């Protein structure tokens, strides 16, 4: 038989060519909006076909993600069509925590809310605690709280990254992540500290890869070698909580080897400012000032002179004799004296950090080498604040980025300050190749405004006398009464957390339950899973939410909650206001809050409804505005009492003015849309955003792109745009005087005094120059009993608890393991897949082990928020999130071990940031007879009436065939 001929005939007979439509129409409509699968705010284009989502892609024109999309963003379809979506307002009928509700109409829901809230407002507005989670409408929610009159408002920053935000704002007038980023384009070396696979999601990925392609180098300093650390050119597996000590050792080395940019320090920082040296006196450690309040420097002849004068000649070393006879020393001299001390030498810190001394010395040498020997110069002339023209822009190409691994420690504020000190000594702030501000930053430094909420600023039936969150400049700005007692339910801006710039959401449930500093009436929350992964001490938090007074009433009398999904927190609320998905509402990434600004110019953005809700839910922002109108909050009603924004958030975004010409969105203002930054409301503004892909971006001229803190053209432009109030240069604060004011109070000076139990805590930690101290928990517990650090990371394809109900993402991470160093495990007799009990001073959990090499030997870690409460999120029985997933939160206490009566918060003593990365544990093999499942477990939550039944097979996409 002729084989070939037979085969061909056979093939042609059996295999008619498959007809493939290689050019299908992919969508009948494409709508741009902004992603919300994490806080990264990437631009997306949603492709719709026959009324459902065909696919979601990145918007190539968008300044944040430039067309890419991440593992979460591309799974947005499954978020939108999730069966965990709430479908109708709910009123609790069973016990709190049971999940038993009845459905109600919106009229009843709103009337109920108004009844509860109006009584509070008429009586004592602070009895409302309004806290929002990872929502991006804080310029609205904060404004609403102010109008309501309660100081008890904050979002999730207190357990996220307030340490970084506050340290940055007091030092630089900007901060890592949201208010600044490495100069990815020009940096030759980028250091990443504690970047736990999280923010800034896509930009970091885009730029790390581009850096590698052009031969630049990245070094990741992180206890765990995954994600970004995996592709870093070098990985330094530091012990958690010791980054600040490493940074100060690098400072030591740079000073020792004289690898510092003294000219930069003189021009742009307070390095030469004179600090009063009068130990024991009330002004010790404050800046020496002249009669007009100007800080002073040592001039050419060694006399005090105005530090703010242009061309002031100044010295960095020396001693001044002030007019009143007191001595004063330049900041730089204090820095040099302190950090040249042997305690910061690499040999002295190596064991604590888990980084060899030689490695530290080499890293310092490399920093100095790149900053000074490989300096770059952009041929871009610019003019500084004093009118002096510079022909080029000199750059020190060392960029830095830091994130949660720095922030979530009790030494996080000072650690972040240490990183900024390092950046400043190298002269790398807002220079080519260094670290750049994202507009609208830099802001004046130290920052403003101050928080409101003092006694007298809270009045029945009236708005609060200012915004509830702000930046205290000293003890006088604390929100305390004359006895020094906290006035906010979270005790923010009290002696327990003086610079709590983002509030302390993590303390609200605890304090409201105790009734300390007072009882509240209603806890109103949005998008914050406080009954599960957003709380420390989760089991106790659930108990507090359900605990009752002797008369049978709940200790926290009322809880209103808004969420789009059946999260654990829903079961613990009394009234549920179901929210939409991110594809069903208007939203603004507002210039008044935390916009998507880029180093090359200000940007902000919106979400638009891409689809109409198919169930009886409303966007939370619309609901809040309607509640505001029904409550008669002044800014939400017209003089005749009619709602000021009858079209809800859409109207608010368009017509609200915070100051004349300044609204939530900066683009296309003015009646004709020709103004940017400031301008009258433009009725077509939102359409202009949509036409532009739902974002606004203003490119700064090249001469304005660096040295923004001292760049005349930039500063004047920023004033014109309404980003800052005046064009004065922003002097970067190596030495932070407001911290010294608190410290002086701790030492007994001044009228506003800390309580005795906190006096030493204040006096020790409010050092105006960066310090390092061991994380509190490790310093308080028996480290032989709890020898290991325990931290979490967020997996790149998941974001907190948001994604366990996402049919695709939960296939990637349906259960988490406890990762441990192989050598450490071997020494403990533990093996891969072992079930272990993990104990801390306050609790224990059971988890399954996974051995790895790329983790610091003294550290165990896991993925964050994978474990779920049975019954939540509309997941079926036996789901791995319940049976094998687990939370570390159960091991983390709100307070430090010790005397319960005088309990100190498990928090940074400066900002109150939750110190959930301070956790210390021990790991022991679970008895083999125990079930192979995680612990603890809680009774399954009931299923609310309206949740849809989940399909056994999901055939998404069949409709497009």
């Amino acid at each position, binding site marked *: 038989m002729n084989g070939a001929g037979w085969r061909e005939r056979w093939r042609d007979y*059996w295999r008619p060519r*498959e007809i493939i439509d290689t050019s299908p129409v992919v969508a009948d409509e494409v709508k741009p909006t902004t992603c919300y699968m994490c806080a990264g705010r990437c631009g997306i284009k949603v492709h719709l076909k026959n009324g459902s989502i065909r696919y979601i892609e990145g918007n190539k024109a968008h300044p944040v993600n430039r067309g890419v999309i991440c593992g979460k963003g*591309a799974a947005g379809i499954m978020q939108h069509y999730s069966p965990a979506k709430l479908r109708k307002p709910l009123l609790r009928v069973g016990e709190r925590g049971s999940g038993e509700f009845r459905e109600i109409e919106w009229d009843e829901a709103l009337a109920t809310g108004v009844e509860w809230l109006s009584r509070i407002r008429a009586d004592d507005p602070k009895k409302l605690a309004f806290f929002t989670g990872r929502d991006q409408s804080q310029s609205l929610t904060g404004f609403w709280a102010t109008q309501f009159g309660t100081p008890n408002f904050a979002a999730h920053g207190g357990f996220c990254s307030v340490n970084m935000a506050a340290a940055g704002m007091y030092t630089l007038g900007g901060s890592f992540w949201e208010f600044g980023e490495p100069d990815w384009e020009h940096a030759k070396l980028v250091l990443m500290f504690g970047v736990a696979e999280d923010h800034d999601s896509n930009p970091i*990925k885009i730029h790390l890869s581009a850096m*590698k392609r052009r031969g630049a180098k990245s070094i990741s300093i992180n206890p765990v070698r995954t994600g*970004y650390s995996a592709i870093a050119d070098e990985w330094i597996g530091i012990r958690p909580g010791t980054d600040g000590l490493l940074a100060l050792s690098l400072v030591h080395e740079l000073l*020792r080897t004289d690898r510092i940019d003294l000219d930069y320090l003189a021009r742009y920082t307070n390095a030469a400012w004179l600090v009063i040296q009068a130990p024991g006196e009330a002004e010790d450690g404050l800046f020496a000032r002249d009669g007009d309040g100007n800080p002073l420097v040592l001039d050419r002849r060694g006399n005090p002179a105005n530090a703010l004068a242009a061309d002031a000649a100044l010295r960095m070393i020396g001693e001044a004799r002030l007019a009143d006879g007191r001595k004063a020393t330049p900041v730089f001299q204090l820095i040099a004296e302190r950090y040249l001390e042997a305690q910061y030498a690499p040999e002295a810190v190596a064991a604590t950090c888990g980084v060899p001394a030689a490695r530290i010395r080499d890293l310092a040498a490399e920093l100095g080498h790149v900053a000074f020997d490989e300096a770059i110069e952009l041929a871009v002339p610019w003019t500084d604040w004093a009118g002096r023209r510079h022909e080029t822009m000199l750059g020190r190409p060392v960029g830095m980025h830091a994130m949660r691994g720095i922030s979530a420690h009790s030494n996080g504020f000072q650690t972040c300050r240490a990183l900024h000190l390092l950046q400043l000594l190298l002269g790398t702030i807002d220079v080519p190749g260094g670290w750049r501000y994202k507009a609208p930053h830099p802001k004046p430094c130290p920052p403003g405004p101050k928080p409101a909420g003092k006694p007298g600023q809270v009045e029945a039936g009236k708005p609060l006398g200012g915004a509830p969150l702000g930046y205290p400049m000293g003890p006088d700005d604390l929100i305390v009464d004359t006895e020094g007692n906290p006035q906010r339910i979270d005790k923010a801006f009290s002696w327990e957390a003086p610079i709590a710039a983002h509030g302390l959401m993590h303390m609200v449930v605890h304090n409201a339950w105790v009734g300390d500093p007072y009882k509240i009436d209603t806890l109103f929350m949005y998008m914050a899973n406080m009954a599960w992964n957003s709380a420390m001490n989760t089991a106790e938090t659930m108990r507090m939410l359900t605990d009752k007074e002797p008369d049978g009433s709940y200790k926290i009398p009322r809880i209103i909650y808004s969420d789009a999904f059946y999260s654990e927190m829903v079961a613990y609320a009394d009234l549920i206001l179901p929210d939409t998905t991110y594809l069903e509402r208007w939203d603004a990434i507002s210039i008044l809050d935390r916009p998507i600004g880029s180093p090359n110019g200000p940007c902000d953005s919106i979400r638009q409804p891409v689809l109409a809700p198919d169930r009886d839910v409303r966007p939370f922002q619309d609901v809040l505005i309607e509640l505001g109108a029904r409550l008669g909050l002044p800014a939400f009603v017209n003089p005749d009492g009619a709602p000021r924004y009858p079209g809800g958030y859409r109207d608010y975004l368009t017509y609200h003015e915070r100051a004349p010409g300044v609204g939530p969105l900066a683009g296309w203002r003015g009646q004709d849309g020709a103004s940017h930054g400031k301008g009258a409301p433009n009725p077509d503004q939102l359409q202009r955003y949509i036409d532009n892909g739902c974002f606004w971006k203003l490119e700064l001229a090249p001469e304005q792109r660096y040295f923004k803190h001292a760049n005349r053209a930039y500063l004047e432009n920023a004033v014109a745009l309404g980003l800052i109030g005046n064009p004065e240069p922003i002097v970067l604060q190596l030495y932070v005087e407001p911290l010294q004011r608190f410290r002086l109070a701790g030492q007994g000076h001044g009228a506003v005094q800390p309580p005795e139990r906190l006096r030493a805590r204040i006096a020790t930690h409010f050092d105006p120059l960066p310090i390092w101290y061991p994380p509190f928990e490790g310093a308080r517990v028996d480290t032989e009993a709890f020898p290991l650090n325990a931290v979490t990371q967020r997996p790149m394809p998941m974001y907190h608890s948001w994604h366990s109900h996402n049919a695709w993402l939960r296939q990637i991470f349906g259960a988490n393991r406890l990762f441990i160093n192989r050598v450490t495990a071997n020494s403990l007799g533990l093996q891969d897949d072992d079930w272990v009990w993990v104990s801390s001073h306050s609790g224990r959990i059971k988890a399954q082990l996974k051995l790895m090499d790329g983790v610091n030997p003294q550290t165990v870690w896991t993925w964050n928020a994978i474990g779920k409460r049975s019954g939540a999120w509309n997941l079926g029985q036996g789901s791995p999130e319940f049976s094998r997933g687990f939370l570390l939160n159960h091991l983390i206490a709100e307070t430090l071990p010790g005397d319960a009566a005088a309990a100190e918060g498990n928090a940074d003593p400066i900002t109150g940031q939750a110190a959930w990365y301070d956790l210390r544990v021990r790991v022991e093999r679970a008895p083999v007879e125990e079930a192979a499942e995680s612990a603890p477990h809680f009774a399954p939550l009931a299923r609310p009436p309206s949740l849809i039944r989940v399909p056994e097979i999901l055939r*998404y996409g069949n409709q*497009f065939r």
Partner: protein
Amino acid sequence: MTDLPIPAPGGKKLGLVIDLDVCVGCHACATACKEWNSGGHSAPLPDFSPYGEGAWGVWFNRVHSFEEGDGVGARTVHFPRSCLHCEDAACVTVCPTGASYKRAEDGIVLVNAEICIGCKLCSWACPYGAREFDEDAGVMKKCTLCIDRIYNDNLVEDERVPACVMVCPTSARHFGDLGDPNSAVAEMVAVRGGKDLMPELGYRPVNKYLPPRHLHGENLAAAAAAAAVRRPEPAAAAGAGDNRLLRWVDRLLSR
């Protein structure tokens, strides 16, 4: 049992080049692939028990993470895995019905669902585990290289690439004609020493993997050597206490 096409001289070999040097394991390629293909040529890509125990679904692209090496030279590798569109594709030759086939014009390996009998021989034959059986429809499915994107006149030209390539945040994925030595992807493979996956099996995969450029250990050694050269030891620094400040005393600076 099914023939591979006789390669045309100069014929296209479309495929992917995946750069392991920059892959951070974010799974964007995996979910973007799932998203596009759920509604695309092979729609749907079903998910079984999607909200319960034992959830699993059809994915054309999966990412694996593992560690490699020991000590300072060790690294974490993120490894995306999908059909390699082999030149000697055993999954094709093993197919009893001709459903599994390799296109002559561009080398893409596809399954004709109309005549697939779901016998799974191809998935047994594929050493890369790249085939995905749709139990719901009873047919085998797999990466199509987004055949409904790459020739799609309804997309703008620069979007006519597979979904995984379009989304990759680290640009770790590249698409092109590996049969054309002048193509960008072929040059990338030549310059970076692109590798076949398990070449010893002889299936001649079209897709290539670019190896990580550096190991941490090598870099550390290089950095240490460079640091030794650049580490300055200024004389003034040797002093103790206040003497160390002397070198800055006479520095007169201006604001």
